[in-house]
């Protein structure tokens, strides 16, 4: 007897979906490590120690820091990519499952994104 999940996993469109998610995860990880490495390099060049308290998180300062080649811009952008990559993977899965008409898995993906969004809202609310 073959479990239903095994049949689904043998489906070529499911294979394509898993491969695109795999590429997204790998690409996101390497992009994040590249940004953090540039930021760390700039820290060394500017003589900033890792135990020095860094600037607080503020999205609006990132573009300016990047243009001025300040380490904080690259570091915060790298950290955003680190944290956003898993959520992007769930978004890709949501689109993939929705295209296939799989309502239950689409709902699961949507609920995960809702929990992540709730994290942002609750944390922002507590800080505000």
């Amino acid at each position, binding site marked *: *007897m073959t*479990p*239903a*999940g*095994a049949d689904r*996993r043998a489906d070529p469109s499911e*294979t394509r*979906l*898993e*491969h695109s*998610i*795999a*590429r997204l*995860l*790998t690409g*996101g*990880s390497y992009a*994040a*490590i590249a940004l*953090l*490495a540039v*930021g*760390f390099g700039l*820290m*060394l060049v500017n*003589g*900033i*120690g*890792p*135990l*020095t*308290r*860094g*600037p*607080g*998180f503020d999205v609006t300062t990132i573009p300016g820091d990047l243009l001025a080649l300040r*380490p904080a811009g690259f*570091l*915060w952008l*790298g*950290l955003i990519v*680190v*944290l*956003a*990559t*898993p*959520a992007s*993977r769930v978004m890709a*899965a949501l689109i993939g499952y929705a295209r296939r008409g799989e309502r239950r*898995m689409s709902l*699961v*993906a949507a609920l*995960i994104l809702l*929990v*992540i969004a709730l*994290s*942002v809202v*609750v*944390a922002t609310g507590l*800080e505000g």
Partner: protein
Amino acid sequence: MTDGLLLLGGGVAAGVFGSLLGLGGGILIVPLLTLAFGLPLIEAVGVSLVCVIMTSGAAAGVYLERRVANLRLGMTLELFTAIGALVGGLVAFLLPEHLLELIFAGLLAYVAVTMARPRETAPAGASAPAADGPDPATLEPVSTDDEPSSDRPFIETLSGPGYRVHRLGWGVVGSLGAGLASALLGIGGGLIKVPTMHVIMGVPLRVATATSNLMIGITASASAIIYLIRGGIDPYAAAPTAIGVFIGASFGSRAAHRIDLRILRGLFVVILLYTAWQMLQRAMA
């Protein structure tokens, strides 16, 4: 500059040890940052969460590409690890630091004892799928008589080649606990997820380990977002540690087959027990 390179080196060591022994980096990074570099525990946990997302992301990509990880099962369970992590991320800022240190010391002692015992299952399973795990294709489907009939259709969509997923309810409970532990202690949560999937839900060890790795990203990011916004992640401390762990984990996974893990495991048990003692003293201070 010296501190930066030391932190990078410490991250490399944590990454190498973690991947050689099948542990997530969190169990090593938090003591490294608190005991060796004097960071407050809450910041160490924030940095550790970043590191475990980084290392699991790259590895999870490989497991999905090779179709070892079960995406459907991982996504279903990570909905609950994310809920647990959201709650844990909020609670972490309310708990006194010494209580978290006490819990962490207990976790270190538990892992040391688990590693000292003869190995039947992967101890934490957060980093690499055990190459010697049972082949899913050789496993016989198990009876599903103990499952409520209303659960069967959805559970069956979560099963994989050669195995059937059982007891989703226990998986949900284990996932909530794993998410909570991850958020409070900065670990990947494989310590809870892998045994839950393998022993309780009937998922082959190799698949459970890879699926747990896939789930770490969402589990840790749900709480890491809270740490980030609430000032619990310092970018200057996070960068060298995360880069070091990433390099170390990549090296460790390539060198694993060339190293006698029995000696390494014995050494690691001693280090864990010593670290647990240090953390306990810090909690009591």
